[in-house]
Structure formats: C-alpha cells, structure tokens
C-alpha cells in the first residue's frame, strides 16, 4: 500500500537538537525548557543519570509486571508439566516417593519460572521498544555515546517554530559548538529511517549480502 504524500509527511519527523556539555547543565535545561511549555521528545546521555526520568516525567515501566506474569506462567507450566508427566501420564516410583512429590518438582519449577521471566522480559522489552531486525535507528548525534548530552525536540509536537526553539535551547545553555559540529541544529530523518520496510530489508540482505554494506544506515559523522 503506497502511502499518500500527506501520510509520508506525517511519518517524516523533524527535530531541533541541542548539545550539552555535562549532566548538570542538561538537568537544568530540562527544567528550563519544560517551564516554557515545550515538550521534549527525548534526551540521550552517554551513561544513565539517576533522577533524569523523574525530571522528564517518565511513567513507571510496566516491564516488572510483565516479568511477574511471565514468571507466574513459568511456575504454572512447570508444575502442570511435571504433574502431568510423572503423576498422570506415566507414573513411576522414584526413590520410594509418591508419584506427585512436590519437593522434587521445585528445582525444575524454579528454573522454568526464571527462564520464562527472563525470556519474557527481554521479548517484551524488544517489542515495546520496537526493536525489530530491520529497524533503522534514529541517531541524532553520535557524540551522545561519547561525551555529549543531547536533547531532541519534535517540531510536530510543539507549537513554537524552529527558530524559536533554537533560541530557547540557546538560552538553556547548550555548549559552544563548532563549525563542523554545531551545538544546535535541525535534524530531519529520511522516510526509510522513519518507516523502514521489512521487505526492503530482506531484499537488501539477499541482493547485497551483508549488513556491512547496508547503505540505509547512517554513516559515521
């Protein structure tokens, strides 16, 4: 199904990005920007910073709940499996114990609980973060994995225009910036980055061979 031009525009995301020097400036900048009524899309830091999630107003993750439910499923499945096998389907006397000797079942039950909780949690995480194989990551600035702190503001989510947002970011205390790496810049993502196609990804794998030649991925800046 071919997307209309309007839909494509919707998918095509435009951001204003600010680069900060350290975590304290970033933390203060978050408060400053939010006070102006601007919605922050996301911030990227080289390492986890405690308390940032509260400043950004993140909701609590539901991953622990998922883990519990998967774990409980594991417990139930393991008990059903063992009772079914050893108690109903093929009863055997082992060490003079009853057919359904619950203490004997505990280690397997424990392992199944842990296994399903772990796999379930990893799976839920991948699904919730949309981490599918053909996903092309939106990278705002590669220096976020090195020594810079990045704040991205989605133009579509805010009423303020690009120039105004840039002004606010400057007031918030971005770094100096250079000619090559400006401190505040606009970042547009291509259609493919925004809406990667799985078929295209598979086709590319077959035609071009390996991911090393994947031109759809952003090149090193």
């Amino acid at each position: 199904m071919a997307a209309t031009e309007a839909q494509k525009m919707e998918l095509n995301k435009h951001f204003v990005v600010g680069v900060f020097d350290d975590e304290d400036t970033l933390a203060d900048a978050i408060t400053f920007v939010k006070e102006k009524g601007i919605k922050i899309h996301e911030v990227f830091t080289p390492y986890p910073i405690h308390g940032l999630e509260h400043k950004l107003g993140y909701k609590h993750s539901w991953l622990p709940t998922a883990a519990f439910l998967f774990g409980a499923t594991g417990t139930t499945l393991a008990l059903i499996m063992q009772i079914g096998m050893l108690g109903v389907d093929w009863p055997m006397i082992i060490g003079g114990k009853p057919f359904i000797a619950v203490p004997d079942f505990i280690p397997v039950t424990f392992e199944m609980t842990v296994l399903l909780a772990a796999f379930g949690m990893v799976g839920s995480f991948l699904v919730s973060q949309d981490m599918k194989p053909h996903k092309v990551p939106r990278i705002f600035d590669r220096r976020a994995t090195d020594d810079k702190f990045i704040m991205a503001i989605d133009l579509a989510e805010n009423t303020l225009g690009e120039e105004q947002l840039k002004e606010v970011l400057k007031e918030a205390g971005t770094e100096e910036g250079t000619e090559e790496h400006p401190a505040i810049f606009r970042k547009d993502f291509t259609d493919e980055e925004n809406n990667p196609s799985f078929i295209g990804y598979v086709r590319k794998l077959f035609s071009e061979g390996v991911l090393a030649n994947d031109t759809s991925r952003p090149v090193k800046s």
Partner: protein
Amino acid sequence: MAAHGTFDREKLVEHFEFSAKAKKTIFTIAGIGLIFALIGIILLATDSGHDEHANLIESGNTLASISEEGTSGIEAGGHGDEHHAEYHWTQRLKANFWVNSIFFLGIAVIGVFFVAIQYVATAGWSAGIKRVPEAFGWAVPVFAGFLGFTFIWGNHELFHWTHDYLYVENTPGYDAIIAGKAPYLNLPFFSGRMIVFLAVWTLFFYLIRKNSLAEDKATSFDEVYKKYRNMVKLSAGFLVFFAVSSSMAAWDWVLSIDTHWFSTMFGWYVFASWWVSGLAAITLAIILIKEAGYLKFINENHLHDMGKYVFAFSIFWTYIWFSQFLLIYYANIPEETIYFIERLGTHYAPAVFVILILNFAFPFLFLMTRESKRKHITLKIAAIAVLIGHYIDFWLMITPGTLKEHGSFGFLEAGLPFVFVGIFAYIVCYNLAKNKDSLVAKNHPLLEEAYNHHI
C-alpha cells in the same frame, strides 16, 4: 543530582534523645511480655500444661519409637515413658532462654556485620544510617552474658552430649556415635570456643565503635581518611573472623542439640536466619527512629535499599532451607531424615509451614513491588513478619531436640521474646543517646553520596 551544593555536614548533625515516651513504650512492651512469660511459667510450674492432648501423645510415641531404633539423640535406651518421668518444666524455660539468647545475640552481631560489610564494600548509600546498626553492637556483650548464663544453667538439659555416661565404654549408656565426636564436642573445648567467639565479636565491635566515634571528632581530612582506612581494616578482620565463627557457633549452639544428626548446610542456615532477621530489625529501627523525628535526610531511597535487602535475603534463607530439606528428603537416609521426621511428623509440623509462609511467601509477594519497599507501613509489616517468622524458625531449630514431645508454643514462648525485645530496644536507644550528636556520622567521607542517594 540537583541537590548538589546544598550539602552541609554540620547541618546534618543530629542528637538522639532517649525520650520518656520511648522509654514508656519499651517498658510497656517488655512488661506485657513479662506478664505473658510469667503466666506461662506459672501454668507450667503448676503442671496444668502437662496433660498433652491426643495428638501430642501420638507424636510422643513417634519420637519414642524413633529413639528405640537408636537414631535420635534421646537418653540411653530411651522410651517414651521414661521421658515423661524425666521431664521437668524448667527444661522448657531453659530452652526458651536459649532460643531467645541466640536469636537476639544474632541480631546484635548482625548490626556489626552490616556495618563491616558496608565499609569493606566502600558503600556510600548507607553512610547516613550506619549509626543505627552500629548501636546494635552494644547488645552483643549483654546477650552473650545471657547465652553463657543459660549454658551454665542448663547445659545438661539442652545438650545431650554433655552427659558423661555416654563416653564410658562397655556400659549400657555408651554411645559410639557421640563418643566419636568427643574431640570436638567436649565441655572445655566447647566453652572455650564460646568464650573466644563472644569475646572477639565484642572486641571487634568495641574497636569499630570507638573508631567510628573518633571520626566525628576528627578535624582534618587526613585524620578522617585515616579513620576510614582503619575502619575498612577492622571490618575486613571482623568479616574473616565472623565467616568462620558464625558457622562454628551454629554447629555448636544449635546443630549439636541434635547430636546424632549433622548437616553441612547448617552454618549457612543459621547465618541466613540471623542475617535476614538482623536486616529486618535494622529496617524497623531506622523507620521507628525516623518516625520519632530523627534521621531527617534519610528518605524512601535509603529504605528502598533496606527493603531490597530484606526481600533478597528472605529468598536466600528459603534457598538454604530448601537445599537442606530437598537433599535429605531425596536421599532418604534414616540418620538424616530424623531431623525432619521430628519436625514434620509430629505436632511441630504446622510451625514448619508457618515459617515458610512468614519467611518466604509473605515477604516474597508483599515486598515484590517497588512501592512496597519505599513506604514505611509496608516495610514495617514485612519486617515484623520476618522477625516473627525467624523467631519461630529458631524455636523450631532448638525445641524439638531439647524438649521432644513436651515442647509447644504457649504463653512463655509468646511472652519471653518481648522481654528480650524490650532489653534490646533499651540498649540500642540508650547507646544512641549516650554519645552526643552521634546519630549521624557527620565526618563519614561518603556521607554526601548517602545524602544524594537516589534510586
């Protein structure tokens, strides 16, 4: 992170007042406990609690028939009838003193152990609360005294191996298995170990406490640093000694009650029980002190860490308990299964399930969510449940071996621990208040980390 710059050590100094209200509460708790214990003692002394109902007699028979096979540590040629004749109610009092002394001595020494662990791991988050577990340490010498007294008072009733006739060859009373253990289980060596363990624990506590208080008086950074390094060295020394001695103490004081029986898990088992009870007691103490208006900068983040400790080590205890149980259950060797037959095959059986619920199922499900580890009320409920559960756990380790079919959970068992709680709380509060401005270790090098602790 945003709190940077507002940190001022001098502003964090707090002085704990042992208020009249706190004293009154402690005396009330201890008083009610004492009344219960006295009622229990009177009931036992007037023999009204002696008529066991049907299932007790039945379980007594189980124990008697076990002893006829010569697998349990019952008096030579033990028959159920003889036991009824030998039993005197003071035995139960002695066994209860032993349970309480060990349980509360454990909690006290865990206070020191906790502080030592924090120093060896150079943990920062706990710098603000460390004076609370540190004050637990003063209870070590006191409960060590109780322990020594109970041992002198009741060693024959508590420990079967203390009887001389077991070691005389070619007599009816000779017990080859116990005689084989004589090089380790003999009175001089046993008492020697007991004195050394208790003395060294007390000594390490004394040095750690002295060094910790001296840190408050330090004026220069070099001095503080020196004290901190001293503390790490002392803590490491204590941990090495405690690792060995806690295990040996468990064999001596608890395992050797069931003299014929043995378990290589036992050192860990007793330690796990002590450790999680100690953590629950520390959590409860911090919350109560905070609710009395102290420890102002301690917030839900610090409590969250304590909650995680209680949660995690409840599971650890269960792991140890179950590892011990499963291997014995699966191997089904009579000399090993006797321990669980004495507990699961008698009137003690409900207590086994009670401890599994209170020490595992309840804290596991109740403390699982993030919020329940951060709220005062939920932490208090969990800590009290864990403390009760582990008290019953120790009762269950000691009573079936000492009192056999005569042991049960009555007024005495319900009251005496509260007397000990009162003594313990009094010691902790008294010592927190004794040294001026000592509730917060104001010169602790990592105090700022604790101040900004956030999870």
